């Protein structure tokens, strides 16, 4: 059976450095959604919240009447080249799906973690989130920075601060396995 999930609460600090790839965690507290457009805006105009110990969620939610209707994760790899400045300013965790590139792996070293949330789990997410505010609403519903308060969102450490990357290991295994077919 799986070990009990580690309980985390924002703002995050050095406790993230003791997490290991494959650990299950439950995250409570405040997270900020950001997709491509929000990252570009924050690079240009600055980060509209205190980035120290903050958590970024790669998500384009459906919001209706100031309520979170559906809020599953989006593909994190699109933010591969856009995340460094956030980690430099003190962001301790990125949440999304599918993992991130080797550049982010290096940027997270001794600083923070990448937490994977299950793709398509929009109803579960909405059940564990409350809407607290919004920045850059002019970017539209999917691209704005929404402030969510989480209540024990179930996540798994995909990339830890020691350079371990589950997604990278899985890709290597799949490549080797497919390699056997390529020869046939």
């Amino acid at each position: 059976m799986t070990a009990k999930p580690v309980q985390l609460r924002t703002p995050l600090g050095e406790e993230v450095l003791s997490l290991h790839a494959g650990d299950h965690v439950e995250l409570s507290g405040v997270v900020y959604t950001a997709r491509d457009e929000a990252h570009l805006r924050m690079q240009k105009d600055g980060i509209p919240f205190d980035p120290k110990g903050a958590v970024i969620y790669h998500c384009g939610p459906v919001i209706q009447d100031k309520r979170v209707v559906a809020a599953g994760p989006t593909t994190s790899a699109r933010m591969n080249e856009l995340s460094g400045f956030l980690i430099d300013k003190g962001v301790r965790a990125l949440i999304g799906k599918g993992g991130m590139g080797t550049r982010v792996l290096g940027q997270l070293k001794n600083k923070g973690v990448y937490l994977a949330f299950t793709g398509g789990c929009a109803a579960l997410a909405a059940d564990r989130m409350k809407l607290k505010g919004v920045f850059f609403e002019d970017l539209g519903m999917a691209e704005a920075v929404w402030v969510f308060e989480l209540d024990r969102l179930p996540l798994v450490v995909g990339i830890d601060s020691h350079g371990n990357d589950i997604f990278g290991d899985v890709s290597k295994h799949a490549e080797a396995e497919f390699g056997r077919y390529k020869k046939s």
Partner: protein
Amino acid sequence: MKSTDQTRIHEALADATFRAYREAVIRLPPDVLRVIEKAAASETSPVARGEFANILQNITMAEKLGVPMCQDTGVPVVYLTLPPEIPLTKELYDAVADGVRRATKEVPLRPNVVDPLTRHNTNDNTGLGMPAIHVKPGEKFTVTVLPKGAGAENMSRIGMLLPSQVSQIEKFVIETVYLAGSRPCPPIVIGVGIGGTFDGAAALAKEALLQPLDQMTEYERGILAAVNRLGIGPMGLGGDTTALAVKVKTAGCHTASLPVAVNIQCWANRHATVEVKP
């Protein structure tokens, strides 16, 4: 002027389309749920077991809250069966589109349909040729809605293999899954269309997704086992379950051709069928 009959058919079909769409995005078909539960029970990777726990809890929450299980509520792919007494008219297409518009507003669905070049969003999930409607003759008047999300659809491929490459079909399927990696939200369902024509193979691959997932042939089970050896696992985090099922549909083809289409579907193999009663 529409006849009373026409009005009755229009209203009944629009209503049935609305109900099928709502059902499809909120509740998974029993055979799909069964293969997810079975895979969850036999999965050995602790990380993958956690992903399955989230997926199963999400399915429960969607039903309890009456909300879509995923924020990508897809584009409407619709299958109609028409009994002999229902003529195929443009009216039927309009009725299905009305049902889609109503579902978009009332469920609600995310407006996903855009013009392919200008990218202008119609905001009601209809457009030129959308909903995509497929018609066949049958005994009963039914409408099936298969909402197709983009993450998985984008990973689909078609290959015009050589007639001598029948033994390479499995490799083509595995290559498709390998190239997709974590992006289609695995564990996936794989629809394979073999034969027919270039366009026909793709249609077969999508129709294959509607077949019962817990009844697989020897051939389908063989491809499934090979796919699962890739070890991509739920969400690309590794594990025994990269795919839940492989379903194959075939059609006669040219002696000089071997079209093979692979339609990838995420774990949420959503579809629902409602009988239309005018």
